[in-house]
């Protein structure tokens, strides 16, 4: 039982580490969930993402020169509360600090608060009796509130002040989690849609309607020798549909966005209440990718949780 608790705790941490940095202050629609018998959890994450290249529409991936460095550092707070054994509610937000340096020596720096995510989840497949194969299943809904500054409201030419998507986003998804001995696996998927929005900025009026998107997560974990350590890996493709934009008399359709987060993690259970984790996420390993920046992210997380 103790081992199962440890493994589930590792999974909890891990779920939150795979949210790789995407373009324009965005993130995944995959939420942080409580998958064990806990009343609440609070996770603080520090991350540094470096954009190493880009894949523009109809181009091959281009890796930037070493003297062009775009860093995004973030501090993320993620709190989740479980009302009973089935319903839970979570909120998350982060502070982003951007440091963009160009090959010609120019330097753009800015910071801002990201979008806020609100999550409600329901455990529709609880683990009431032992099963070797049947996972614990969750359905969830997530609302992203555009509190961050979007690219359509940016005042910085390089977009260093961009910290959000700029849209209300509704996500619906399912998650399945299972522990098998010293191994665990997790499958999560979500689809989301955006609400059309008109941006008025610097006398320009831009109406944007992004297409629907979605993301998946497949992860595996291993706790060697039933220890407090866990090694994990995951793959998470992210897709954003084409955006239809109206600007002046122009109506244009953007390319779709696709990128894959490949993540490796090392976690340590410090006590029954505390957990620490390192995570590395790389968007250059798997493809195909399209219309996106490619980044590598290091994250350190610290989690406090409360028993029921």
């Amino acid at each position, binding site marked *: 039982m103790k081992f199962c608790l440890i493994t589930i705790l590792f999974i909890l941490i891990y779920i939150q580490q795979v949210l790789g940095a995407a373009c324009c202050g965005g993130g995944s629609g995959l939420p942080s969930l409580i998958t064990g018998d806990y009343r609440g959890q609070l996770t603080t994450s520090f991350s540094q993402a470096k954009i190493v290249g880009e894949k523009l529409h109809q181009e*091959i*991936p281009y*890796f930037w020169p070493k003297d062009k460095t775009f860093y995004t550092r973030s501090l993320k707070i993620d709190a989740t509360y479980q009302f009973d054994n089935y319903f839970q509610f979570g909120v998350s937000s982060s502070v982003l600090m951007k440091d963009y340096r160009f090959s010609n020596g*120019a330097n753009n720096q800015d910071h801002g608060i990201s979008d806020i995510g609100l999550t409600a989840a329901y455990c529709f497949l609880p683990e009431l009796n032992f099963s070797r194969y049947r996972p614990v299943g969750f359905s969830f809904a997530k609302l992203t509130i555009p509190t961050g500054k979007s*690219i359509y409201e940016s005042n910085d*030419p390089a977009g260093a002040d961009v910290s959000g998507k700029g849209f209300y986003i509704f996500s619906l998804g399912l998650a399945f989690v299972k522990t098998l001995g010293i191994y665990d696996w997790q499958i999560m998927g979500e689809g989301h849609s955006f609400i059309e929005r008109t941006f008025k900025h610097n006398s320009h009026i831009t109406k944007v309607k992004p297409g629907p998107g979605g993301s998946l997560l497949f992860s595996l974990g291993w706790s060697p020798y039933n220890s407090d350590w866990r090694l994990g890996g995951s793959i998470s493709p992210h897709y954003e549909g084409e955006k239809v934009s109206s600007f002046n008399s122009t109506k244009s359709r953007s390319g779709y966005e696709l990128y*894959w987060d490949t993540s490796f993690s090392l976690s340590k259970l410090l006590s029954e209440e505390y957990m620490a984790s390192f995570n590395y996420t790389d968007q250059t*390993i798997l*493809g*195909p990718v399209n219309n996106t920046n490619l980044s590598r992210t290091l994250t350190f997380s610290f989690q406090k949780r409360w028993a029921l």
Partner: protein
Amino acid sequence: MNAILFVFLIIFSGCEISPLLNHTYNEFAQAKKRISSSTHFVGSLNLNIEFDWPKGPNGNPNLESQLQLIFRDDEGKLTNLPATHSLFVYGWMPSMGHGTADDGELIQTGMGTYLIKDFYFSMPGEWDIFIQILKNNVVDEEIKISVTVPESTP
């Protein structure tokens, strides 16, 4: 468990098109360069319009770009726009769905010659430049030119 392994095998097949294994350090190595000047016909005014880039185009948002527009009649003489007409120029990146960092300021530099200065692209890539010819502040005709914008143009 077999099903999970199958899913992972499918996913890992994506390695064939891994950015890590298939990328370039040469910006826009496969892009068609469309930076050089070009000419379009403005039917509503019966004039030809030439485009040129005295500066740029630069995809680095800290570097200014300048676009020059030259209007000529069918005999090749420089010709001003009629007093009832004006110009509005803006850029749009269709693949990303956003505009420029700054669409700059349009000034007339000579007979039939106009310059858009302080024009800043927000990033490299494929951009569309829209030149609107307005008659009494209503769009009379719009011309689109496409340009591949590198990080910086020597």
